[in-house]
């Protein structure tokens, strides 16, 4: 499941094993989601799913749900 793997990546990158994400999660909901962590997160997601996210799309995600939909649409490595 994309959402489970996405959650694992979030937990590792934020180093918080209790972190729970949902479709509506945004950067404002997660402590320490600064620009550095954001880069790490994008990188880890690309790595986990074997995809490259275009810069324009990267800037357009409003929440985790949109990012998840994008990964599924791209047929991220399963």
């Amino acid at each position, binding site marked *: 499941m994309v959402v489970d793997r996405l959650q694992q990546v979030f*937990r*590792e990158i934020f180093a918080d*094993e209790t972190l729970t994400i949902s479709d509506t999660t945004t950067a404002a909901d997660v402590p320490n989601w600064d620009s*550095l962590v954001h*880069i790490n997160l994008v*990188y*880890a997601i690309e*790595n986990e799913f074997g995809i490259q996210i275009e*810069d324009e799309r990267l800037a357009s995600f409003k929440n985790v749900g949109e990012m998840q939909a994008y990964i599924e649409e791209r047929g991220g490595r399963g």
Partner: protein
Amino acid sequence: MPGELPPQDKWATVPADPRVPKQHQASDVGAVAPAADVSPKKELASITVTEISLRHCLDAARAHERSGDHATALRWVFTAIDAGDDLAGWTAAAQLARRCLAHVGPLPRSARIAVLGSYTTSQLAALLPVAAARTGVAVEVYECGYGQYQQEILDPNSELYRFAPDIVVLAVHAGEARLPAVSDDPEAEVAREVARWTSLWETVTARSGARVVQHTFAVPPEVALGHLSTRVRGCRAAMLAAVNAELGRAAADRVALVDCDRLAAEVGKRRWFDARYWNRAKQAVALDCVSILARHTAAVIGAQLGVSRKCLVLDLDNTLWGGVLGEEGLAGIALGDGPIGEAFTAFQEYVLELKSKGVILAVCSKNNEADVREVFETHPNMRIKLDDIAAFSASWDDKPAQLRAIAANLGIGLDSLVFVDDNPVERDVVRQLAAGVDVIEMPVDPHAYVRALASYPYFETVALTSEDAARTAQYKARADAAKAAASATSLDDFHRDLEMVATVVPLDDVTQPRVVQLIGKTNQFNLTGRRRGDADVAALRADPAATVLCLRLADKFADHGLVGVVIAIQRGAVLDIDTWLMSCRVIGRTLEDETAAVLVAEARRRGCTLVRGRYIPTAKNGLVAELYPRLGFVRADGADDPLSEAAGGPGEPGGSTWVLDVATAKAPPGLMRVLDSEGSTVEWQGAMT
């Protein structure tokens, strides 16, 4: 000659390995037993790791953390980061390690590390603590502002100097080198750029005393000149390579290089530099390579601080040769002839290269000793000979027990050993029951053995010295001598039988590198743990108040080389011992007693009436806690002691001060000859009256 070779398809595919019990098969999912089942005791298999991968090992680490066993959790974190390079996994590992470290005892070393970068080094700074802890160094990291490395070094009032670093890491990338695309005068360009860096090194060293760890430039593979660049010394790629080479030549004792160009080539330069992340966030090292950079930077720092691994312990069957000797016989093992045999020969040759740089070799095998010795002695394709092996253990004892015996025999700790075994069950047992031993996760395919061993970074050494090259011979002599001790009637007889000769040699250009190396890496017999560097030692040579005793030791088995160093400073009528250490390979030979006698003679020569020393406990020097009282020194802590904290001295925590009255000093045991540098015998002239 060996007879029938095993069928070549024996290793051709990688099926479920029949030697591997079920819990080791990678396909067996469900990495960790429920936390409730976990026993905090260090017993086998209470937490099962199905596969040595970053995530599985982290799961095991978390399970041990939940059970309250932080030491074991930490070991699984280290196994995890050995197993993978993934940024997310490393980020989680770094956090887990931080939590576990708060619950376990101190690591062998600690250091304050400043990361000065020319690109975004936040990830490197975040991963360095776990990578350094892996090598035995607890670190506090300071990261300078983005690209501020030069300002921080040049401004004497910068945060860098307020931080008081022990190590300064210059994490710089190829784009930072001030070299044009093409130059008419490449020599001058290269010299200018090299001078820029060496002058930064000198400024750091002069202002902070810190050691410098410099990353070399990863030369980009995009070369507009194409193959013509090989003929044009003025092209940027050629100049970058020249700068790397010149920096290597210029690096002195307090500067070490991390060869990023090689690391980048090893993982692939297309992977090392990811233009998207450079443009997005000025990441000059791709984020899945930062872990590799952290690992190797930590290995080099560990070597600087003297915590490199010393001894490679090798299994035999299916590790040094193909097949099981007990089943296939001398003629049936695969070695030398045929593709699989060639793989094992290549592996042996690589092992010998490690030996020649100073790594001690040992054998740990479950076999009949006579049978395996016969292979070493008679198999025509054996590259490794019995003489190459400092400690040979072949028996039916379990491997953790054999490893402890090997360590004891060589006089080193389990945390100096690196274990190589093709059998995952043995690796697992050693991981669990011989804590401290590093276990290399060997591939199933012997063709990949060399690469697996070469990828292990913790045999890093500071310098190649003749002592390094001869070290196996010396440890072997020590092990032989240890066997002889078992048969000698008394310890004194044993010592006399060794026909030991100690020689006091001067500190000069020849001995200084070895003296600095010994000061840097001696842990057990080290009274103060003070790490005097090359510049400090050079200064002592010019100081008339300072005496630096360098002692060599030889016996009938081996010349152990320069193994003892004492730095003493005269303060009026007192000769103060600043540093006293001895290589662990000559511990227990009475050399310390003879050294004390030489020191007393030196005190008398200087007209001193007291010799004074300090013992400062560290994680590893418990061995010498009682040295001073044993030698007749008496406790003399107090405010009149200029070394004490009260008197403004170093005041090292837990330290004690000891004095020896030159007039009443005891005669040494006299179980060895002591010569001065002219070859004359140094006689004990009795107490001064």
